[in-house]
């Protein structure tokens, strides 16, 4: 390898540009160090340290947001990483997610006899990996970051290892995750191979680089190997977002995983998948007919399957998992719209994700407080009478579920509206019809949950014994209030966020 190439590569290794990710990695190490150094009875400060570190980083990133986001898109590390506005927004998104997961984790782990430190360390590392994932500009970077995320989740899902359901969920996630990684890797290899074949136009010796690949695909718009590579890569991403037919792991894993991890999977992992999909949609834009038809079929199937399967679920963790599957379907509509040249579609998807974040964590927060010792066993009957005994939790739950169902004027409604508008502009009428049917179906199960909380009474105390409810602490209470208030406010006034996202 010529020395000059290495020199240019070294010159573009701008470590400052990934300072947040480095900080998170160091935070994870520091938390482990704290556990070793501190006496056992002082371990209660570790969650606080984690939340403080992640929250402080969030504030720092927000403070530098305009500086970082308004500049021109910049590539570092020899084109491995691209820094742009969308990447910066997802950094904020994942940091918020990390803080919220840590808060929920602090509440949930207090009920378990489990080591409490690794959880926060792993959450920090996984968050860093997600942030790198959405900024990657190269398949190697993408794969490494993705595997870091997935390996982190293997541990997190089976974290409560005394619970057989949690262990089983971990195993299922491991196997299906490995399968999907295999598909993804196969797709990447196909693309890399065909992109470097002699005799084709626009080949490159670095076809894993997104720019080079996009250039190659544009010049070979009907190459079968490239098409096969593309669909296999899409299959790998579809696993992350839980789109049909790669959604099959969702209910079991969501149910078995500890509730904060379920939240992390539902929001963080899914958002990461969509961020990658938004990037790849641009890379694959030369194959737009293929990609839109694959994603279109997936979206329709995902919406219908998610909602129909959720209808008859009694376990709320499975229910929220399947409803999350349907949300992935609505989001796919936005992604397809970007391929039809809708400039606002990316903004709509990101807005939807923010609304989904607020609403989901409101619901998961309530779930965490209601979960008993057996975290996997959370049934809808457990919510009976919540409105009377815990009005605060019940109201937060109602706002969260209402927002997920897309009831105006909550944030979830505005998100759905924006995505549907861009889909309409892209003339995706059939998909819109399916989506509307899905929304109608979803109202049924969301509202029967709300009804359970407000209008039902625990009928026979012996038959369905409700686990003891955790009292709401100061910080979780504050966080839940903020989430609910933000869900309402964002429904009324989108100005600030919409401006940042680029919706106007």
């Amino acid at each position, binding site marked *: 390898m010529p020395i000059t190439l290495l020199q240019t590569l070294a010159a573009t290794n701008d470590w400052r540009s990934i300072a947040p990710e480095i900080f998170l990695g160091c935070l994870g190490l520091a938390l482990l160090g704290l556990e070793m150094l501190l006496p056992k009875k002082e371990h209660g400060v570790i969650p606080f340290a984690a939340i403080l570190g992640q929250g402080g980083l969030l504030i720092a990133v927000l403070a530098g947001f305009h500086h970082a986001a308004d500049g021109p898109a910049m590539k570092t590390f020899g084109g491995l990483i691209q820094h742009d506005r969308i990447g910066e927004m997802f950094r904020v998104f994942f940091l918020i997610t990390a803080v919220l997961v840590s808060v929920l984790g602090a509440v949930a782990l207090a009920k378990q006899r489990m080591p409490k430190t690794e959880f926060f360390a792993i959450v920090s590392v996984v968050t860093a990996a997600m942030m790198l994932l959405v900024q990657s500009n190269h398949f190697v970077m993408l794969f490494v970051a993705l595997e870091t995320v997935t390996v982190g989740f293997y541990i997190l899902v089976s974290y409560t290892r005394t619970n057989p359901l949690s262990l089983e969920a971990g*195993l*299922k996630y491991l*196997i*299906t995750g490995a*399968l*999907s990684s295999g*598909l993804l890797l196969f797709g990447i290899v196909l693309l890399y191979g065909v992109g470097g074949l002699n005799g084709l136009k626009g080949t490159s010796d670095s076809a894993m680089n997104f720019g080079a690949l996009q250039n190659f695909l544009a010049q070979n718009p009907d190459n*079968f190997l490239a*098409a*096969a590579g*593309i*669909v*296999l890569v*899409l*299959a790998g991403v*579809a696993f992350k977002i839980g789109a049909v*037919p*790669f959604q*099959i*792991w969702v*209910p*079991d894993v969501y149910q078995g995983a500890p509730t904060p991890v379920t939240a992390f999977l539902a929001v963080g992992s899914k958002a990461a998948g969509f961020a990658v999909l938004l990037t790849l949609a641009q890379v694959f834009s030369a194959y737009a007919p*293929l990609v839109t*038809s*694959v994603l279109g*079929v997936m979206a329709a199937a995902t919406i219908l*399957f998610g909602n*129909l*399967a*959720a*209808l*008859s*679920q009694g376990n709320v963790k499975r229910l929220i998992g399947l409803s999350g599957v349907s949300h992935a379907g609505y989001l796919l509509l936005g992604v397809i719209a970007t391929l039809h040249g809708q400039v606002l579609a990316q903004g709509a998807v990101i807005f939807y994700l923010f609304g989904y974040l607020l609403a989901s964590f409101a619901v998961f927060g309530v779930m965490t407080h209601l979960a008993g010792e057996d975290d996997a066993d959370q049934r809808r009957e457990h919510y009976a009478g919540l409105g009377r005994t815990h009005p605060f939790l019940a109201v937060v739950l109602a706002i969260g579920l209402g927002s997920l169902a897309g009831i105006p004027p909550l944030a979830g409604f505005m998100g759905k509206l924006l995505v549907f508008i861009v889909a309409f502009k892209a003339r995706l009428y059939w998909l819109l019809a399916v989506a509307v049917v899905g929304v109608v*179906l979803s109202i*049924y199960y969301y509202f029967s949950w709300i009804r359970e909380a407000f209008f039902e009474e625990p009928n026979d105390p012996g038959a369905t014994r409700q686990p003891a409810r955790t009292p709401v602490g100061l910080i979780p209470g504050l966080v839940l209030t903020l989430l609910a208030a933000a869900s309402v406010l964002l429904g009324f006034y989108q100005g600030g966020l919409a401006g940042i996202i680029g919706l106007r």
Partner: protein
Amino acid sequence: MTMLQHAILVLLLPLASAAVIALLLRRAGGAAAFVSTATATAIAMIAVILAVHGDRFEAAMEWLRLGGFRLTLGIKFDDLAALMLCIVGVVGLCVHVFSLGYMKEDGAKARYFGGLSIFMFSMIGIVLADNLFMIFIFWELVGFSSWVLINHFHEKQSASEAAKKAFIVNRVGDFGFLLGIIMCWWVNGTVNFSALAHAHAFSTAIPLLLFCGAVGKSAQLPLQVWLPDAMEGPTPVSALIHAATMVAAGIFMLCRIEPLMVPEALNVILWVGAATALYAALCAITQRDIKKVLAYSTLSQLGYMVAAFGLGSIATEHEGKAVLVAAGVGAAMFHLTTHAFFKALLFLGSGSVIHGCHHEQDIFKMGGLRKKMPLTFVTFTIGVFAIAGLPFITAGFYSKDAILHLAQEKNTAVFAILVFTAVLTSFYMFRMWKLVFLGTPRSDEAAHAHEGGPSLTLPLVVLAILSLVGGYTTHEGTGLIYGDRFKGVLSLIPHAEGWSVVAMSLGILAVGAGAALLLYKSGPVDSLAARLPAVFLGLHLVKESFDTAYNYYVAKIQQRFALLLGALDDILIAGVIVRGCATVAELFGLGARALHTGSLHTYVWWFLGGAAALWAFAAGWFH
């Protein structure tokens, strides 16, 4: 403060008053009355300040933008708005003061005065609006406040039915109005009045659809049925809303959209107005209830104004050039102004009579009130002379003659109808006047009648003075009480020349009043029914015809159709579609749930199937 801020203040003050009453003073009737009346005083003062200051302006702000569609909220304050605002302010203040005395004993004073404030807000909104869409919003709001106030005595079945009727009948007109607005926006690309003044696209449909709104709100044929029933509301409300201001909003709106008018549309408007004027005058003759007489009289006068508007422009020479003067607008607005004064006076006078007679409303049970209630008698007499058009000293003479003069110039048939209506007007007014005030008391209530306190009499005096002096205007558009502040409207009034008009007016008055005074005896029975039963029956049938027709339609057609729809809803929608869909969805849900077997082997097969399907996609099998 700039004049624009004054205008915004005058709009928002009554809203604030209504909010304060609704939120804080629901149980404090006295305080609510004070707040509302103080607000009305401020409105009247600011309205006069705005008018006298002479500044005329337009301002707008964007409210909503969806792509190319923009909605603005704005204020258009020209001479027309200034005149209307002054009328609303002054009459509104009189009615508020009158209500202080009239509603003293009422149990729900807070709701009443809150309703008045809401009404003032909505009415001022109509007056200041700078586009049709904004007018429509406030149009619905006056409809709502009218519903609240008619419904004030809601324990009474008839009151709540009347309120419902008023609301629903107005909905019919508003539907056309909304269609007109949409069509206007579609064709012209704007609903802003100033922009519409330069509109180039004309059609007959737009002005006629917009006119539907006026037909509902100003109770023209065939939607006139709600106004007589609306008299179930408290009498001051009848004076303010159902005589002076809200029902006149239709005419005000027509004047706003005058640039859109085409001859065919004007012709329709003209005939609707003339027919309403005549029909309502015929109905008024047989009424026994003092308020019903005045209600039909209001209908008739509103028909006059609509007809005046429909007469349209006249060509005159101005500095050697032929110009079109919108004389119809001038005549209609002029009559609207004087009518607001004298009809509010008559209604408040009737309120004073009803209050004095312990809520007796039958004119055949009154009589002899001249001596019992001298101040009411004098002011009411002024009102009667004003509506009958006594030459020179009353305002009604000038405004009515402007209309008659215009009709004479433009359309002889309509002129004949309007003259005949004028004769009928003085006939039924003097009939009522004689039965109420002359002769001897015919009931205990009338025998023990008494004058109310100053809050009841003061507004009468103010309005009586306005009914006398409100008619003096010149060709240049200046006027005795108007100064030169409303030139934009008042200079459009057509002025009759010569003595023929005076002679005609005197003739009308003499024939109508003379016949009434001769025919009717101060007795407990209707002299017309006794002497000319055929005529009386005929008039009665004329009045009943519309009610019968509507009742038939509602009972026989609409009700049955609704029953049919209800049955369809139960069987088809609730039964088959909703239940059926729910069952199907449930079955699918169970099926989908069964796919999640929990076995890892199955999941791996899923992945394999998915990968195979995707491969097939890539190979183009599904294209």
